[in-house]
């Protein structure tokens, strides 16, 4: 059945992201706790994460571009991004955030900029893959609704 193969495709895709280290077990938890009462839970979380992450990255970038770096603002942005990415299973982004925190503690602006660039790249990779997960999820949900109505 198409629904089963789509679900299998989604499962295989998430598994491959786990194997590549792009997602960790925390994403599996989110999928597991999604239920009939909250069928769009994972979708909601991914959308909230995207908003959080892009705000935090913008804030971090702005802080580093100031003539006198606002390290407090940068720390707040990094911790928000780290918390959000680790909660969704975006372990590479979370790890890069940890490294950025270390560079901030050293007040090393150049290293901060390098690591922020890496965070942006890791986030973009994560974002593209989460978008694919959302797309597959939408297709599965549409199919399920179509089957219920039939």
């Amino acid at each position, binding site marked *: 059945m198409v629904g089963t193969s789509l679900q299998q495709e989604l499962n295989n895709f998430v598994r491959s992201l786990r194997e590549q280290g792009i997602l960790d077990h925390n994403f599996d938890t989110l999928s597991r706790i999604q239920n009939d009462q909250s069928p769009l839970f994972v979708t909601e*979380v991914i959308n909230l994460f995207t908003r959080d992450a892009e705000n935090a990255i913008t804030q971090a970038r702005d802080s580093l571009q100031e003539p006198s770096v606002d390290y407090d603002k940068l720390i707040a942005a990094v911790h928000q991004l780290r918390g959000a990415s680790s909660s969704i299973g975006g372990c590479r982004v979370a790890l890069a955030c940890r490294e950025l925190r270390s560079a901030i503690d050293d007040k090393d602006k150049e290293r901060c900029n390098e690591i922020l660039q890496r965070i942006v790249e890791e986030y973009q990779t994560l974002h593209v893959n989460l978008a694919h997960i959302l797309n597959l999820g939408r297709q599965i949900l549409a199919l399920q609704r179509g089957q219920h109505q039939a």
Partner: protein
Amino acid sequence: MMIGAEGASSSKKARISENPVSKNRPYFALVVDDDPMIRRIHSMILKSVGFKVEVAENGKEAVDLFRTGAKFHIVFIDMEMPVMDGIEATKAMRAMKVESKIVGVTSRNSETEREVFMQAGLDLCYTKPLTMAKIVPLLEELQKN
């Protein structure tokens, strides 16, 4: 007898879990975090193991809930929040003689920062994210007591 936040506004009423841990003894949790994503995730995880969950967006909202007479078995509270942060909120709750277990949940991993949070009156401090592995032992402890 521990009750939920029945005095809270309708927009913050706890959603009743359909799978209570025990029909005779529901457990009530308060999730305090300014990030809607974290509130959503932590609420769902807690509900999945049977907690009835209320949320607050900052420390002041959490303290106000207790002031209105709400009681929770356990509070999960973020460190950094606007209006009133987790440290100040925890101090305020303990000053009010709140006996709930208060668990800090933070992205900060500096020992100094976590120690300051613990000193405010936490029972425990976890690094985000909240996971089943962290919650289940807490639930088992509540059930034992």
